[in-house]
């Protein structure tokens, strides 16, 4: 079974600074998809960024980028120019290509942004 580990239960960053959230995973599949979701206090799950394992290029969405290291099974999220609205819980998620129904989420990292 796949596992997703987020080793940082809590992180904090100063407004306008950069922060990196860590995620490691374990899988025997060669093709899969990785996601970062944001969950603000409203509880709504919001997709932040997506990475296909077959793509070597790291995904980027505006101030959000990932460092995808397939051999190391690592998928970290970098948030640049942090804003107060970035404060939320962030979840790393895995979806295999052979069975896209069985998704696995990490336990989350709570990000605090200090003004």
């Amino acid at each position, binding site marked *: 079974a796949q596992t*997703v580990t*987020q080793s940082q239960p809590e992180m904090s960053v100063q407004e306008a600074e950069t922060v990196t959230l860590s995620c490691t995973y374990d899988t025997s599949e060669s093709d899969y*998809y990785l*996601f970062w979701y944001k969950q603000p206090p409203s*509880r*709504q*799950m919001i*997709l932040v960024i*997506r990475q*296909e394992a077959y793509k070597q290029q790291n995904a980027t969405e505006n101030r959000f980028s990932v460092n995808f290291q397939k051999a190391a099974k690592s998928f970290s999220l970098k948030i640049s120019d942090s804003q107060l609205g970035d404060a939320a819980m962030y*979840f790393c*998620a895995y*979806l295999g*290509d052979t069975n*896209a*129904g*069985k*998704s*696995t*989420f*990490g*336990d*989350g990292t709570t990000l605090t942004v200090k003004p």
Partner: protein
Amino acid sequence: NAGVTQTPKFRILKIGQSMTLQCTQDMNHNYMYWYRQDPGMGLKLIYYSVGAGITDKGEVPNGYNVSRSTTEDFPLRLELAAPSQTSVYFCASSYRTSGPLEQYFGPGTRLTVT
């Protein structure tokens, strides 16, 4: 499009009662999912469906049942509610073609069993 809708938003059950959490999506997605999220934790997959008439167990299926008679609807049934089922329940959907796209989530149902 309304996206993924869930009803009810909140519910309090007594131990041993049963209920159905409703989930509907209007995006013609083939995949649908049910998760539970305990306080301070990540999402655990309860059941999922790859299309109408096809369902399968996730990580934590015990105490729950699902059905998928239409593309749009994916209700989750709790039989004999127990305090351990107190949680927030999320329904999600996605459309898979050549590769799974991201999941779209409903707003969640907060369930308390006392």
